[in-house]
């Protein structure tokens, strides 16, 4: 063998190994996993993991509906999952490849079956509530000792909001979260699909709109932790992450999360495999890895969200498992509600209403 052909063989072999290296592409929410888990997955399986993040269901859904996203695992929330299943965006799970399914929590599976009947297409990753995060000291300073920090009145009563505006309030930029909350505040069915009922929220939201600094889905984590804002209506775990970051920074900021006592939206983030996933086999391996009790507990211990994995609970830190803001007790659980996707015509009304509230047009 000449040197030339030797070199050629070497190049060809290298090329072949590179082409054979298996890849799994995961598209998950930002700030939503302990990154050590990603390395652990690569070490255990030898599969190269490509991990991208998004911060709104809408962005994910547009990628799914356009098709050819190139991802193997994606993480839509319940109502979005339901519509994407309807559009044919996902493939059924091959449960024979998912032995760790035995770890999953029947209580949560019953609830997620509302979006994905029989849990045919998805597994639960995390679930939580949407509620109120406050910088306790600042809010008490502005509203007094008996500030209603666990009530929707804190964010929907203009009298409170007018005062809170001085220290900064963020709302989620997600009509599917804000409108049900406003409906609950009004004493209406939060899952109402009736445009006339939905329209009632305009008065509530427009009245407090001038006092909202920003509508955003992720900035409030840092803003709360730094003390830039004093109130955020957001996702439970994100606010608890802010609490944690403030503790670590020892900047004197004390953050508290409360699910509104009037009732809170319960949501589920589900892992699913796109119908055109390049590596469905690797995707199943990733799902099975995530459903491992220890791995799932590690994720929860990092992101402060409850998961749908019963077996993981023995490894979840006691301060998380016993925190009713994360794992609600029986009473709070009764007070949680879920929503269903809006039909396209109603969706248009909702988006339009949201634009009107935000821009005043």
């Amino acid at each position, binding site marked *: 063998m000449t040197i030339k052909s030797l070199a050629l063989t070497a190049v060809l072999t290298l090329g072949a190994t590179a082409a054979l290296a298996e890849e799994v592409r995961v598209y998950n929410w930002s700030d939503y996993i302990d990154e050590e888990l990603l390395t652990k997955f690569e070490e255990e399986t030898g599969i190269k993991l490509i991990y991208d993040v998004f911060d709104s269901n809408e962005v994910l859904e*547009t990628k799914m509906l356009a098709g050819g996203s190139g991802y193997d695992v994606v993480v839509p929330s319940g109502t979005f999952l339901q519509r994407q299943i309807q*559009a044919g965006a996902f493939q059924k799970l091959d449960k024979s490849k998912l032995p760790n399914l035995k770890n999953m929590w029947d209580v949560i599976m019953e609830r997620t079956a509302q979006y994905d009947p029989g849990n045919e297409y998805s597994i639960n990753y995390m679930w939580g509530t949407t509620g109120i995060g406050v910088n306790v000291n600042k809010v008490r300073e502005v509203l007094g000792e008996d500030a209603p920090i666990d009530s929707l009145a804190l964010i929907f009563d203009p009298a409170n909001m007018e005062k809170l505006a001085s220290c900064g309030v963020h709302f989620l930029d997600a009509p599917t979260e804000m409108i049900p909350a406003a409906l609950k505040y009004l004493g209406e069915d939060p899952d109402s699909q009736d445009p006339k009922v939905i329209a009632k929220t305009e008065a509530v939201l427009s009245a407090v709109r001038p006092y909202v600094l920003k509508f955003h889905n992720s900035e409030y984590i840092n803003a709360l932790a730094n003390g830039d804002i004093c109130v955020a209506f957001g996702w439970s775990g994100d606010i608890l992450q802010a609490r944690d970051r403030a503790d670590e920074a020892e900047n004197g900021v004390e953050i508290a999360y409360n699910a509104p006592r009037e009732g809170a939206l319960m949501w589920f983030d589900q892992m699913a495999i796109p119908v055109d996933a390049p590596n469905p086999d690797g995707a199943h391996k990733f799902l099975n890895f995530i459903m491992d009790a220890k791995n799932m507990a590690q994720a929860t211990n990092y992101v402060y969200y409850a998961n749908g994995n019963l077996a993981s609970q023995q490894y979840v830190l006691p301060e998380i498992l016993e925190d009713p803001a994360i794992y609600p007790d029986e009473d709070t659980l009764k007070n949680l509600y879920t929503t269903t996707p809006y039909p396209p015509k109603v969706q248009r009304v909702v988006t339009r209403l949201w634009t009107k509230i935000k*821009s005043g047009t």
Partner: protein
Amino acid sequence: MRRVILIAVPYLWLLALFLVPFVIVLKISLSDAAISIPPYTPTLDLSAGWQGIRDFLAALDFENFVWLTQDDLYWKAYLSSLWIALASTAMTLLAGYPIAYGMARAPEEWRPTLMMLVILPFWTSFLIRVYSWMGILSQEGVLNQFLLWLGVIDRPLMILNTNTAVYIGIVYTYLPFMILPIYAALDRMDNSLIEAAEDLGCSRLTAFWLVTVPLSKNGIIAGCFLVFIPALGEFVIPSLLGGSRTLMIGKVLWEEFFSNRDWPVASAVAVVLLLILVVPIVLFQRNQERQQEAEK
């Protein structure tokens, strides 16, 4: 033969990079939204042959364009975008002209360095530059800290998330597009013309208005178009620096596309935006042609 190729290349360019995408967008704008992949119907099914194409064409309609006229959101957003684009073009011109003028007047050996300084920001990602503006303009940001330290203000100014921040962002981003064509025009200008004007009794200021400005007219026009056209459809700057009250058509388009997942209406918004832009683009083209004629 050479002539044919010379003409064919720009037309192929136009066909591949403008007409084909436009026809695709136009086609989607005539469809209906649906819960499917892709999220609209009808899709062209070539396997059904002529009948398939006929069915496809029959299912297209102008419903989405009618819809745009029924909600005041759209024309308000178009008007607001036009206003923001016009105002920021004017501001960019006011900021850019003196810079270009100064560059053209600078000693010969400085000019390459000055030119370099104008182009240098392009070496960094546009997104990073916009993010640094967020750092500068925010409540806890550099600008507010500085002004507080100077004692000019006693509480931080709210600049980020307002239209002011959008103007700052647009003017900053597009300034080089204004400076370069004006500089090119001024650089070519014959200085003896100014001397002649002054010899004939013009003051320096009158000479500037009567000689320099008209001679740099083509540079001004080119610069204005280069700023106005992208500013009109701008999405990144208003969404990062602007607040929720900043109404621009780029953001409306995004919401149609992502929040309503209504690609047909989003495409209709894009088609109308293009039609609005075609007018200034054609004017720009005319101006360029006339300029070339004049130079011959």
